[in-house]
């Protein structure tokens, strides 16, 4: 499974949203209804799934699906 698919799968699972809602442009808070705790949980899930550490400064920037995918791809390459 590629990174993009896995990331979207985690978002669907963690935020309890439909797969169709998880577009690349979707903003976690504005479009997918996440609150601040959800975003922290989401980051922790990415860390666990991909076995990396995401510094807080980076985490703050990961506000959309695309940004998360882009960041994780660059980290894991």
């Amino acid at each position, binding site marked *: 499974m590629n990174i993009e698919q896995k990331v979207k799968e985690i978002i669907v699972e963690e935020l309890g949203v439909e797969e169709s809602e998880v577009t690349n442009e979707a903003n976690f808070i504005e479009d997918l209804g996440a609150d601040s*705790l959800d975003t922290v*949980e989401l980051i922790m899930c990415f860390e666990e799934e991909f076995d990396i550490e995401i510094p807080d400064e980076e985490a703050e920037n990961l506000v959309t699906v695309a940004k998360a995918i882009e960041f994780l791809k660059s980290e894991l390459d």
Partner: protein
Amino acid sequence: MYNLEDKIVVVTGGARGIGFSITQKFAKQGAISIILDLDQDAIDKAVKEIDDAGYRALGYNTDVTNNKAIKKLFNKIYDEFGKIDILVNNAGITKDGLLMKMKEEDWDKVITVNLKGTYNCTQAISRYLLKQREGVIINIASIIGIMGNAGQANYAASKGGIIALTKSTAKEFAARNIRVNSIAPGFIKTKMTDKLSDEIIDSYSKAIPLSRMGLPEDVANLCIFLASDQSSYITGQTINIDGGLIM
């Protein structure tokens, strides 16, 4: 009434004193009590006593000041039981002395065990509770954290800190149906209060409206209430249990 059957309860410092009374009480309510403590002999004794009475408990020898070890342990507990329901942050120490002469290490040690230990365990359990959308955290503070006490600046600061930590945690976790409250015991008969000077005990006993020291069981009873659905609308509070000493 309290419906704590099969709940997974972690009690830090749960092998002795007030902690053991809490551990025991939860086990008697049908919960599985998990003791975190530093004293292996005390853990063995506590587990055996609960086991012999036909209830369920187990113990881990661990140090609440070790953030990484605590995270690993909560992960292990979660893996084993598939959930964790209740955390009682009870582990605490005193190293008394007048502030002018208080050693830096005594200040650090008390703050680290009492306050940082509470932070460590709360952080470690939070991801599981948040995911579950259910759970209760009970922090054992002290009336000393509210009223202060000569000779206990470090202890008072740590307990006052716990009360503030309780309120912040309650606000952060409320959206996930997780309640966080503090209990502030007054003078309770334990080995810790045995260490207090007779003068201190005398002066406070006179000031207690119910004119007696409390028992560990009094604190445990309140814990059970705060852990149960009977208190489902109470969060962020500090409840004094002190025979009316401070009102």
